[in-house]
């Protein structure tokens, strides 16, 4: 492999480059494109839902199709939009923040992305093959195990494949952060975004296996006639709820913690202050991650677990409010006394505080089991988790993208368009979801295809739908911003924000190998320390030498494609045994690629010292 790649490549060469890349920065862009695409798709589904609910007893979509929409909206947004967009930020930033040249397992990193993408495509193929899954993103048995058609099969196989990718990504970042920190970068000097990435990866490691097991059991129930969740065969449907939420609740923290990390870095940078109470922030992050595994049954207060279980899970859930509160106050006091500069990244972060506080408040209210008997499965819950996931995760993703866009692409996203996006989306968001708290208690359960005319729910739903249109406009303006910036945007240097952490010490976009010389880290906010002592950049920890980098490979793409084909085989072998050939072909492709990977020696390549000196190797 040549280390000097021509700058003006044709489309084919660029495509091949991305199909085979193991570079974390390019994988970040892949995740961004993939996640962005599914975000728009999930958004379209959301708009169809809101249009259906614009007036009582509407018939914009049919009852069955509505259930497909609500299922795919939830599944897409969580697994195929929020997760990959978080992974985009993780990939783009974490190796740079810890002063590494790549992740620990670049091949695995690429495999993780392709598994996510093919899993997502498999799931969405269901739209064209007889109907999408329609049992809710939670896929509660026995509805999910007894639904006719193949919709839920696509859910099971699609999520199994993309979930495997996520698990790999989690393991990869754990190992990367443990092993690949630059000299002097102790754990307690890591930027908070890296800390949250670390805890999130640990949560993925422990949470996703529960989903994997649950999906396998469901796959056997649906495709091979077992009865794990079938009461008539001695099974138990509540077990699915437990398995799903043992995964599902930590999943919420998997999404929100990196967003917390983004806000921590953004607040610190744009108020020109060190993060207030760094140690407490780290401690709170770890504690939230730990408690996140102790509270899953608060999704099941009405299942009939009894008052003892309900009380224990209620109190455990309330306890999470304490570390979260610590974070909120530490952010406020990071801003306190600072020199606060408000730009788009900062707007999203500032808007997060009140929005997320409302989501946290309703979270504590929901935790009160006796009150939850009313809230449960109503629009109050819908409002709550959108305040947390949109007001937390999506705001965090927007903040992170505005903040790190110059690092990823060398250009700053247009500020005016950024502000237009922010205000339309922010106002639309509150308009859509605030009223839903009330709709829920006024008697509107969630996942309702229609509501009746005379039940006092008309005005609230109309307001909610109007809000949704504002959010859609905001998202479209952001997309336009991305396009216009990539065409016209001005190039910026490596450190446009007067940054504090390592990623701002290298050019934008960073060279292939990130750091010509690994930096020597002397404390929290290492770049800031160097700046205050009058230096322009980091002090190197090593002399300039040859840099060892991994080779690109198409194998991860091939493996994922094999599983994609096998997925179809598994789904359709129920109808016709000849589809088993697809299972064998697909698994053959996948295992064959694994075999090639195992026996072929690939030592990577070196970028030579002389090329580095010439400024080559980009």
């Amino acid at each position, binding site marked *: 492999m040549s280390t000097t790649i021509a700058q003006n490549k044709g489309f084919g060469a660029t495509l091949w480059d991305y199909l085979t890349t193991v570079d974390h920065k390019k994988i970040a862009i892949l995740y961004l494109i993939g996640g962005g695409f599914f975000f728009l798709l999930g958004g379209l589904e959301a708009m169809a839902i809101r249009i259906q609910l614009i007036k009582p007893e509407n018939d914009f979509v049919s009852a069955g199709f509505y259930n497909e929409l609500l299922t795919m909206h939830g599944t897409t947004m969580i697994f195929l939009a929020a997760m990959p967009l978080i992974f985009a930020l993780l990939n783009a930033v974490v190796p740079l923040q810890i002063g590494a040249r790549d992740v620990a397992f670049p091949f695995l990193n690429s495999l993780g992305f392709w598994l996510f993408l093919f899993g997502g495509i498999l799931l969405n193929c269901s739209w064209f093959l007889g109907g999408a899954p329609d049992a809710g993103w939670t896929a509660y048995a*026995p509805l999910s195990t007894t639904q006719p058609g193949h919709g839920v099969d696509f859910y099971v196989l699609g999520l199994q494949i993309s979930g495997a990718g996520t698990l790999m990504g989690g393991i990869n970042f754990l190992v990367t952060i443990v092993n690949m920190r630059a000299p002097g970068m102790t754990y307690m000097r890591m930027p908070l975004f890296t800390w949250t990435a670390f805890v999130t990866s640990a949560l993925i490691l422990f949470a996703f296996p529960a989903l994997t097991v649950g999906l396998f059991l469901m796959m056997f129930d649906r495709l091979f006639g077992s009865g794990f969740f079938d009461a008539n065969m001695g099974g138990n449907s509540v077990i699915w709820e437990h398995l799903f939420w043992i995964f599902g609740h930590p999943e919420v923290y998997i999404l929100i913690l990196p967003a917390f990390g983004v806000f921590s870095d953004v607040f610190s940078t744009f108020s020109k202050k060190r993060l207030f109470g760094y140690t407490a922030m780290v401690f709170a992050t770890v504690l939230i991650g730990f408690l996140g595994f102790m509270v899953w049954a608060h999704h099941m207060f009405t299942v009939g677990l009894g008052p003892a279980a309900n009380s224990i899970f*209620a109190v455990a859930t309330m306890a999470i*409010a304490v570390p979260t509160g610590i974070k909120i106050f530490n952010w406020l006091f990071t801003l306190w006394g600072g020199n606060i500069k408000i730009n788009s990244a900062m707007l999203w972060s500032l808007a997060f505080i009140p929005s997320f506080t409302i989501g946290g408040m309703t979270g504590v209210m929901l935790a*009160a089991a*006796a009150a939850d*008997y009313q809230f449960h499965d109503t629009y109050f819950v819908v409002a709550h988790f959108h305040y947390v996931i949109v007001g937390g995760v999506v705001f965090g993703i927007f903040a992170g993208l505005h903040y790190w866009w110059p690092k990823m692409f060398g250009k700053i996203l247009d500020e005016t368009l950024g502000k237009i996006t922010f205000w339309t989306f922010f106002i639309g968001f509150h308009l859509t979801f605030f009223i839903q708290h009330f709709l829920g208690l006024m008697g509107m359960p969630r*996942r309702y295809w229609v509501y009746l005319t005379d039940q*006092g729910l008309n005005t609230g739903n109309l307001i909610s739908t109007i809000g949704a249109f504002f959010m859609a406009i905001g998202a479209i303006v952001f997309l336009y911003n991305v396009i216009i910036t990539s065409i016209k945007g001005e190039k910026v240097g490596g450190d446009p924000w007067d940054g504090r952490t390592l990623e701002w010490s290298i050019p934008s976009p960073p060279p292939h190998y990130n750091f010509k010389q690994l930096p020597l880290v002397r404390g929290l906010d290492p770049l800031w320390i160097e700046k205050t002592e009058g230096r322009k950049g980091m002090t190197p920890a090593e002399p300039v030498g040859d840099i060892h980098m991994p080779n690109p490979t198409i194998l991860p793409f091939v493996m994922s494609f094999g599983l994609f084909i096998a997925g179809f085989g598994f789904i359709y072998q129920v109808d016709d045994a000849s589809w088993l050939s697809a299972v064998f072909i697909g698994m053959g492709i996948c295992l064959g690629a694994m075999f090639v990977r195992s026996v072929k020696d690939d030592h990577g390549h070196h970028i030579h010292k002389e090329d580095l000196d010439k400024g080559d190797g980009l």
Partner: protein
Amino acid sequence: MKGWMGKVRALFWLSILSIVLSGCGKENLSAFLPKGYGAQVSLDIIFISLAVMVFVFIVVMIIYTFVLVKFRQKKGQEDFVPKQTEGNKALEVVWTVIPILLLIIIAVPTIAATYDLADESDKADSLNISVTGNQYWWHFNYGEEEIQTSQDMYIPVGEKVYLNMMSSDVLHSFWVPSISGKMDTNPENENTMYIEALEEGVYWGKCAELCGPSHSLMDFKIVAVSPEEYQQWVEDMQNVDLEATPETASAQEGQAIFENSCLGCHAIGSSPTAVGPNLTNFGDRTKLAGVEDLTHENVVNWILNPEKMKPGNKMTGNYTVPSEEEAEKIADYLLQLKPSDVTPETASSNN
């Protein structure tokens, strides 16, 4: 600065306005207007937790507003470097300990209420009703009284009624917001919850767990009447004359067709058949199929094409569709099934 704050303020007033416009919801449906013991207890906890949380929110917003007004970058100070504070132990202890205390204020009544609502000490001495959730209708079996009915549950006001709930197919959740919180019906185990209506009335019930295409159409009612009227209703239901001949010729013919074609799934009287809803007091139902007005025309339309009213229902495809003429007769027969003078109207008018 001003524009920014202005927008937030505008948003705030818009939200307030929207709440006022929509009120607290419809009486006998909204959880904001409790008419039952469980709903009252839940609403108390909702208000306690809301009060504590609003206090926290106000504190956060005061600091937030102050910080943004006071420390926003001023013209000419772009290069000002503020003091790099590491933290403050005392402050951090404060905002750890105070939230813990606030949570205790919520947690103690929550646990008390959770145990209160799960109390089963007087179950044996109370009215027990077995509730079965089906796609997409509810069945109520008054075991001791030997009464079976569907869709409208009659209960005496001011008395604890124990509901023993199961599902015959997928998960459902029994929710009558103005009477009590919800409880799931599972296919493998019986869940028990008690309800107690504090006022007479007809209360809207809804299914609150996604159960298929017609999930949103799985409505039912609780009809709370005075204990005397309830006794009357029980007697009337127990003494339904299955052989009674309807008054009109059309209804008589309808009865014959019904007994030939429909009785396999739909029971009249206390027969345990519950493949489809029990139709003993069909003429007194508040709604047809939970959501439609109980008119002759609607009943005929239902018999001819139930799929149009309730997509995915279990009747479609499982019976021989009668001619329109026959359907009219069946409707005539069904609509005159009014075994008791105690009806939903009794409950509403007494109120």
